[in-house]
């Protein structure tokens, strides 16, 4: 049965409201993309900032509540909290990027990712908003710093993914004008009466509008690099904190647990990104592709490992027996 997570007491009600706001801002960006009316994007951005502020408030409520019920740690350990936190850093990342680069078209992708994460948190039966005491191994302040750095990294990688998508769309148009012309023609020819064209017409339109509304390709390239290296820095910090914690808690800084291994794989993916720039023949397009693939690796490391391979760090099995 689907159960909506919403309780005023533990703060999840406010998260649910912020979820609705994110949906609204996504719709606003959607309208902006098609109408090119700046009013929509401005309104959406204001909603995003409000949702972010509301989530900040909700986190404070939730933290205080968790102290109140005798759990002396911020609630960040279960699937619900982590998904909500993921959406939170994505909004933060988008707000910062918007201030630096003024990407409106990026809003569409970023609010979509935040929306997906919030939807999973709010509706999925796997994610419950009830604050449950965590297993003994997690009762440590290392946890807080470990999770915050990793989520800053995840948020940055999500942003680089969004920008890389814009980059690749734009790149295709510049380097393959014939093909994109065909797509334009196809869009013009598309007969709304035909069932198939109804299906793909919006995507073609979206594609065209993305090309039109995105910043120049060089700016996108620079933004991908800067966002990725920000993420890489925090990923490195998060992994090192995790290792130091593991060393402190159970005597080995590395035990090849699946989550650990996947975080290393993520790290390697972005190390390849950083070095790809230095190799002849690996142009910006390859780097954008690595940013896209890298985000898939991040998502697998974050959720896939828990849902598929259980281990030390499992989010997906609340209250599971401690396997240390």
């Amino acid at each position, binding site marked *: 049965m689907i159960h909506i997570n919403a309780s005023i007491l533990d703060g999840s009600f406010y998260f649910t409201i912020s979820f609705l706001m994110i949906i609204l801002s996504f719709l606003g960006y959607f309208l902006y993309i098609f109408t090119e009316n700046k009013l929509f994007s401005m309104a959406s951005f204001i909603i995003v900032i409000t949702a972010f502020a509301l989530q900040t408030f909700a986190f404070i409520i939730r933290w205080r509540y968790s102290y109140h019920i005798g759990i002396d740690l911020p609630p960040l350990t279960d699937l619900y909290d982590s998904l909500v936190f993921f959406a939170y850093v994505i909004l933060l990342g988008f707000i910062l990027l918007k201030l630096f680069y003024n990407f409106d078209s990026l809003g569409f992708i970023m609010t979509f990712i935040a929306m997906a994460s919030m939807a999973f948190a709010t509706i999925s039966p796997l994610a419950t908003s009830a604050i*449950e*005491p965590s*297993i*003994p*191994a997690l*009762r*440590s302040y290392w946890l807080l710093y470990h999770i915050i750095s990793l989520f800053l990294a995840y948020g940055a990688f999500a942003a680089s993914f969004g920008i890389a998508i814009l980059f690749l769309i734009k790149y295709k148009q510049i380097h393959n004008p014939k093909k994109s012309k065909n797509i334009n023609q196809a869009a013009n020819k598309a007969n709304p009466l035909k069932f198939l064209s109804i299906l793909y017409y919006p995507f073609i339109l979206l594609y065209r509008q993305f090309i039109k509304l995105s910043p*120049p390709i*060089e*700016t996108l*390239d*620079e933004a991908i*690099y*800067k966002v990725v*290296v*920000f993420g*890489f*820095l925090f990923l*490195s*910090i998060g992994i*090192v904190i995790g*290792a*130091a914690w593991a*060393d*402190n*808690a*159970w*005597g*080995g*800084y*590395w*035990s*090849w647990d*699946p989550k650990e*291994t*996947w975080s*290393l*794989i993520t790290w*390697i*993916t972005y*190390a*390849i990104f950083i*070095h*790809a*720039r*230095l*190799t002849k023949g690996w142009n910006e397009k390859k780097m954008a592709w690595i940013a896209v693939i890298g985000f898939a690796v991040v998502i697998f490391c974050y959720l896939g*490992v828990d849902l598929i*391979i259980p281990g030390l760090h499992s989010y997906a099995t609340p*209250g599971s027996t*401690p*396997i*240390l």
Partner: protein
Amino acid sequence: MLSKLNKFFSSVKLAIILFILIAAVSIVGTIIDQGDTISQYKIIYGNNVFHILYWLGFLNIYNSWYFIGLAALLILTLIVSSANRTPKIIKEIINPDLSFDTALQKKRFKAQYITLQSSKNTEELLTFAEKAFRKNFGNPIKDIRNKKDNKTGSLFYSKNSIFRISPIIAHLGALVVLTGVILSAVLGYRSYTNIKVGQTIQHSYLLKNNKPVLLPFKIKLDNYVSKYYKDGMPKAYISTLTIMKKHIGVLTKTIRVNHPLTYDGITIYQASFGHYKPTAARILVLNLKLKNKKNKKALIYATPGKIYNSKINNIKFSFNFFKKPKKNSIPFYISIIKNNKKIGPPLIFQELPYKTKKGNMPLFFTKYNNNIAFIFAGVKTYYYSGVEITKNVDTDIVWIGSAILIFALFFSFFFNQQSLWIRVTPSEPSEKDKTNKIEILAIPHKKFASFYSMIDKNADEFKKNI
């Protein structure tokens, strides 16, 4: 030959290939459970597949020769490429090649090259240029003006050139981390063992291959408790351990998760807990005839089927399970034994309206001839505490390397070298209108759009003045 090898091992392409291979091998290790026992693998994969996986080294992949080999190759490329590039980069930092023409040729693909014409004189032009670029580049580090004829002149700016060593330091940090990892893998070990309450152990089993290691002291588990939250979630596992040397306890301490105990370079961590399958029932034997309280009762841990002496009228008994217990009835019984023969029907238990103090378990009662009563008071469980025993090697070197790496990453990413040349040359005397040619050459270390637009902006400002 040597230089070819040198080139091969310092190529970034090779490094990328090694990165990809290491990632691929690591993925295999997350798909196939590592470190299970052989019998578990045989159950999961079947005999044949097990042998193939074993032969491929997939069951202990992070210790396989090829994984270690790939890591070694990566370390080699790191060393070779750093050794190759470091002297060159340091030389360039200390003694940069300031020549406009070589820079223009070498870095063409990154450079922003602007030429302008002006009739103003060289001195004036360079002053304007200084003004226009000061905000972003500061003062020129080299300023050549031919004051006498005031004809040619050039400015050279370099920003953040010192930070070109940050990637070198980042690689050094990575090397330090890897060195620490190798040292701890070679010199230390990680092992685990389970200790029953009351038991003393001196062996532990390596995590990677279950081989026993002899510890330099014995460990006795004095006590073990689990604490729970109200809803039954575990809150803490606490073991009280005594370190024994030559049968003398030298240290007693409680450990719990995140709070280990270190003795003699060896650290003991609380990892898990459990209990063995109960093998004995706790039977309280009461002498109903005796008024004197002292010898009235005895507690006997009875293993099913075995014969025990009740010490009352020489009566022996055994505790047994019914082979086919009836539904909703108590499945065990007592047999009374005299002269090695079972006598009478089995003594059936009845539930008492009391519970045990400790576990709040029901008590069961039965008696024989109004002489002896037997009370079943639960089962005897042996708790064990799962501990991880680690020979400590200084992991500090890993943390120092990580700190170096992270600091250097920060500077590599956010402090980039930028160079700028401005050169003014008078046009050929043959040309009629006497103008000066101004060349602006800007070279970033990284091709960032913002760099080029910044140069354009400064150049526009400059143009306004000339």
